[in-house]
């Protein structure tokens, strides 16, 4: 009992540290990739090729003065960044990173907790993620923030439905809610569910971007309209938590997308040493992240009514259609 | 066999539905076609039915067609069923035949009336009701038709409802008829109570066993039904509506108040002859009332100046004749007179209508005169009708009237007094009819220049029916020539199977005389000649008074001014009714209204409402509109409920 708790704790710590590092370097990656796409150089002073830039940012944020405006709801204001950050970490609890492998004589499972309702867990947790943004926007006592918060809540409610429906197709085919089983079912590149659920994948991708408030769906923080949206009034470490939370969210949806549609840690051809299978997971997540950044560098932002129309009038019917067709195929 | 029977009443109903539902949307030719066509088809079918019935052996001349069960309530079982027997065959022929002619006449007469479609709709509905009445095979269905004609007469009398007098007359007709209907209903109840059925065949067959002949019950039933008949057929004391009913369009008067509807009472009594024959007292009442009405109305008719009013009282008088016939158990004579009267009275009314039409709606005969040369067709047909109604030999009225007079004297129920009254009435009839004729068509032209200028013979549409009716008026009587003249009384023979006679056996009515032998024949012939001679004298006297020496008439009027006033004002009957019945009724109603209704009933109702209002005022504070207050009460309720379940 104690042993299990111990190993689980170690695993959790390792995963959390890895995610935090990943987030940090995701920011670096974003800056670099966008810079290159825009024919700039990007961060290059701190360390070789600017590799220490994230560390420098972290130090800067940690030591800046924490400004709390007068008319904020203090408790909520303080709570919001944490609420924005934690759910994304929690969703990693059921994401399988690698195949089960043995290390120094111990069997190690490649997932923190293999819930048999893993996907539901992810949804439950990510649905809570919206509170961070909403509360931040609300408690700041600033109209820009409030607008960002309202936008965020409406956007979340609108896209959450399509988001949920988009993966129902996969679940119908896979006949399981366990993330681990899902990965195991996608042995080779031919088994990846992206081929069986192309529409589902497309919907998932779009909704995931919307759920994480990334461009072109970044209306809650639209700089040109709302200054910085829900985190206008945040600074210093609290702002940092939003910042990290956003990237953690990106990583989470990328990891989930990888697991659902691209076979997770499975190598494209199948057979691969279990200890190294995590590499494939990382590669796939990296590609997802790259795609995210690429989109940001490419697309302009939606207008708000376009966003709502798109979500309700295109994505939602398509998602329902996808579920219906898939269900019919599975049934007959 | 004759399964088209139901079509005879149905066709006018269809016509009514078409004209009635599409009021104001059909062009006039279509309305005329539908209105006349439906009756015309009915007439054709009636003729078919008549001949089919005639082809049957005498004993089985009865066609019954049950359409469906109308009232199946326990032992009370009423069908919608039509019955064709010799009596109803005669009636449908009269109704559809005369009705058709009047419809055609109306096309011309009403041509410029704005209510053309409504008029024909009512007319068709009326014909439907009348046909239902005469074809019904039970009292209840007959009553439906009975009420139907009452309704239609109300609608048609008040056709020009924008005229106060017309709508008043309509109401009067309706209300007076109601009184009679009430009697009819009660009579019907007694019959059902005793016999257990309302079917004519059943009632007639079982009447001798169900009732004690001459007993109080049958007398009561017959008298009550006779009350109904007096209402519908305008006998004393319920005749008052008929003269007023002349407010309707003239063809309506002809159709309803001369030819068909008013005969319903006679028909009903003839139909119930088996019952009446068992109630001699009731028969006597019928005869007396009939004779009295005949004389009474004739006297009023002597002095009236309105052309239609004269005819109206003449109708009342002639109806009295028919009842007289029924009252002396000469039912077929009554029906015979009904038929001939339908012909010549319709002709008279239509002729009057033609005159009124020509005179630009002038009805006062004092302002007419000399119309003979302007309206030749109308004049000649009118003259034929007058001869017929006066009872000049060779014309239809002679045969029927003579038969009634003879029966009044010779029948078991007859009496010398009845005969004398009948004879006097006949004289009076001849007198006032020719007074009317002379004043209208002969002598000086007393109308104003404007009217004179517009005088014109009526269009073909109107004169053709007149001529047809004139022919019928002349020859209609030959179907019922008396034996004494050496002919066969086809009519009596035809009706004999269903007319009850004294002995209770059909077919012997013709020889049902308590006097027999050659002396009897001599007497009959003698009386006939006496009547004719007197009638001719009356006519000549009328000619003398109103054509040759009008001043004598004026002098007579002045000498007997008191009598004249009484007669001219119709014996003040309307006023007496007003004082004796209507006024107390109004006072009583006002009492009920002001005291019982307003103070007591309304007070009670308002009191309840007041109590409710006060209570509401008290409890409205519970309806605070505060959701939390409601919720508290709700939760308290839950507490009590759970508490009850726990403590139980």
């Amino acid at each position, binding site marked *: 009992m104690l042993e299990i708790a111990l190993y689980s704790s170690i695993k959790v710590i390792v995963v959390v540290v890895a995610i935090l590092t990943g987030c940090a370097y995701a920011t670096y990656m974003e800056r670099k990739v966008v810079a290159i796409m825009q024919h700039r150089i990007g961060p290059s002073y701190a360390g070789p090729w600017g590799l220490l830039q994230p560390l420098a940012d972290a130090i800067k944020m940690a030591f800046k003065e924490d400004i709390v405006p007068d008319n904020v*709801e203090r*408790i*909520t204001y303080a*709570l919001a960044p944490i609420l924005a950050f934690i759910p994304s970490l929690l969703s990693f609890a059921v994401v399988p990173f690698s195949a089960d492998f043995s290390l120094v004589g111990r069997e190690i499972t490649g997932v923190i907790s293999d*819930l*048999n*309702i893993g996907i*539901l*867990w992810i*949804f*439950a947790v990510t*649905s*809570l993620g*919206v*509170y961070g943004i*909403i*509360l931040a*926007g*609300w*408690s700041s006592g600033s109209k820009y923030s*409030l607008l960002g*918060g*309202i936008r965020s*809540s*409406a956007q*979340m*409610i609108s896209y*959450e439905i399509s988001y*949920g429906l988009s993966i129902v197709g996969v679940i119908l085919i896979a006949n399981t*809610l366990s993330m681990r089983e899902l990965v195991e079912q996608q042995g080779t590149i031919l088994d990846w569910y992206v081929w069986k659920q192309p529409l589902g994948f497309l919907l998932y991708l779009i909704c995931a971007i919307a759920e994480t408030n990334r461009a072109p769906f970044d209306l809650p923080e639209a700089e040109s309209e709302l200054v910085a949206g829900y985190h206008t009034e945040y600074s210093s470490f609290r702002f940092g938590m939003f910042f990290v939370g956003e990237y953690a969210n990106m990583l989470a949806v990328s990891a989930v997308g990888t697991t659902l549609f691209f076979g997770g840690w499975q190598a494209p051809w199948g057979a691969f040493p279990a200890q190294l299978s995590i590499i494939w997971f990382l590669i796939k997540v990296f590609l997802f992240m790259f795609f995210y950044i690429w989109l940001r560098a490419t697309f302009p932002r939606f207008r708000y009514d376009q966003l709502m129309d798109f979500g309700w009038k295109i994505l939602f019917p398509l998602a329902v259609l996808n579920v219906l067709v898939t269900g019919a195929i599975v049934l007959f | 066999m004759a399964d088209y029977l139901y079509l005879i009443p149905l066709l006018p109903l269809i016509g009514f539905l078409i004209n009635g539902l599409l009021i104001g949307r059909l062009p006039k030719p279509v309305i005329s076609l539908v209105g006349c066509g439906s009756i015309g088809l009915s007439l054709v079918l009636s003729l078919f039915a008549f001949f089919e019935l005639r082809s049957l052996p005498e004993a089985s001349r009865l066609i019954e067609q049950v359409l469906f069960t109308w009232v199946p309530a326990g032992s009370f079982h009423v069908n919608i069923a039509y019955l064709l027997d010799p009596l109803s065959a005669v009636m449908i022929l009269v109704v559809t035949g005369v009705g058709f002619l009047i419809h055609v006449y109306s096309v011309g007469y009403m041509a410029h009336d704005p209510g053309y479609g409504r008029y024909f709709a009512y007319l068709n509905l009326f014909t439907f009701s009348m046909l239902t009445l005469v074809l019904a095979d039970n009292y209840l269905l007959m009553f439906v038709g009975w009420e139907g004609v009452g309704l239609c007469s109300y609608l048609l009398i008040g056709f020009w409802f924008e005229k106060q007098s017309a709508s008043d007359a309509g109401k009067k007709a309706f209300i007076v008829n109601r009184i009679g209907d009430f009697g009819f209903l009660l009579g019907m109840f007694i019959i059902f109570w005793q016999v257990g059925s309302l079917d004519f065949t059943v009632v007639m067959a079982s009447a001798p066993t169900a009732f004690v002949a001459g007993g109080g019950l049958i007398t009561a039933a017959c008298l009550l039904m006779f009350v109904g008949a007096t209402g519908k057929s305008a006998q004393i004391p319920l005749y008052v509506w008929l003269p007023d009913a002349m407010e309707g369009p003239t063809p309506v008067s002809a159709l309803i108040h001369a030819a068909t509807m008013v005969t319903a009472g006679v028909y009903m009594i003839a139909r119930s002859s088996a019952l009446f024959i068992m109630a001699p007292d009731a028969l006597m009442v019928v005869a007396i009332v009939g004779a009295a009405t005949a004389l009474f109305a004739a006297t009023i008719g002597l002095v009236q100046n309105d052309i239609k009013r004269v005819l109206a009282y003449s109708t009342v008088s002639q109806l009295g004749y028919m009842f007289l016939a029924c009252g002396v158990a000469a039912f077929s004579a009554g029906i015979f007179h009904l038929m001939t009267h339908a012909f010549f009275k319709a002709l008279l009314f239509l002729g009057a209508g033609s005159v009124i039409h020509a005179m630009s709606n002038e009805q006062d005969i004092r302002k007419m005169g000399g119309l003979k040369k302007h309206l030749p067709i109308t004049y000649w047909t009118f003259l034929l009708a007058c001869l017929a109604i006066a009872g000049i030999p060779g014309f239809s009225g002679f045969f029927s009237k003579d038969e009634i007079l003879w029966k009044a004297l010779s029948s078991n129920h007859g009496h010398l007094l009845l005969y004398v009254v009948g004879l006097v009435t006949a004289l009076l009839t001849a007198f006032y009819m020719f007074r009317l004729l002379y004043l209208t068509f002969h002598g000086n032209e007393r109308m104003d220049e404007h009217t004179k200028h517009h005088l014109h013979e009526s269009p073909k549409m109107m004169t053709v029916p007149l001529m047809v009716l004139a022919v019928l008026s002349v020859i209609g009587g030959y179907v019922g020539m008396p034996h004494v003249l050496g002919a066969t009384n086809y009519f009596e023979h035809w009706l004999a199977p269903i007319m009850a006679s004294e002995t209770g056996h059909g077919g012997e009515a013709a020889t049902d005389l308590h006097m027999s032998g050659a002396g009897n024949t001599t007497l009959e012939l003698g009386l006939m000649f006496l009547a004719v001679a007197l009638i001719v004298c009356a006519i000549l006297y009328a000619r003398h008074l109103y054509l040759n020496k009008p001043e004598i008439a004026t002098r007579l009027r002045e000498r007997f001014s008191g009598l004249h006033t009484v007669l001219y004002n119709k014996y003040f009957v309307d006023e007496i009714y007003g004082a004796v019945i209507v006024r107390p009724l109004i006072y009583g109603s006002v009492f009920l209204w002001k005291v019982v209704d307003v103070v007591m009933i309304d007070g009670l109702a308002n009191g309840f409402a007041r109590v409710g209002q006060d209570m509401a005022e008290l409890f409205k504070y519970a309806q605070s509109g505060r959701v*939390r*207050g409601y919720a*508290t009460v709700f*939760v*308290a309720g*839950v*507490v009590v409920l*759970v*508490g009850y379940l*726990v403590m139980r």
Partner: protein
Amino acid sequence: MTLDTVIFFISAVVAVFGATMMISQRNPVASVLYMILSLVAQAVIYIQLSALFVGAMLVIVYAGAIMVLFLFVIMLLNLRGSEDLGAHSSPISKVTKYVVSILLFVEFVFVIKSVIIGSPVAGLLTTTPPVDDFGSVKSVSMLLFTKYLYPFELTGILLLIAVVGAVVIARRDKADDVEDTHSSTGTEPAKTDEVVTK
């Protein structure tokens, strides 16, 4: 104290704490947050009772959707708990309300004490292990689509009606809009005056 007891105790306390705080807050946003806290605690209890699927649904539907909707409305109406709701209730009605509520609670406890404890049900929870597949998506769904198909379809219809109803209720009529703009343009000067005088 077993682990179960500890988990239950903590969750129960958190749930009751959240609920209590929820009703005692003036600021509706804080209320919503405490409500979510209470809900999450309840979800933990669900999962402790092997109701995994329903527990997840509780979080997704309530915390993820309904409460977001509440927050959305609060933000849309911009309610900061600053509106003076006043103290209109009389002390009597206040006391009545407390008494009624507490009576209800007492009755419930009484029912639990007198009916549940001592009945065969009381021991079942602690003695019988959950059957296989208890609370899984599959087993719940099997019931949902077989035995409870008609209620399920009915709730579907209910949802549809609710959606339509909500749209109809909350929609502003176009005619109203026109009227609004008219009236607002009409009254705007007065409003600014008011502001100025304030």
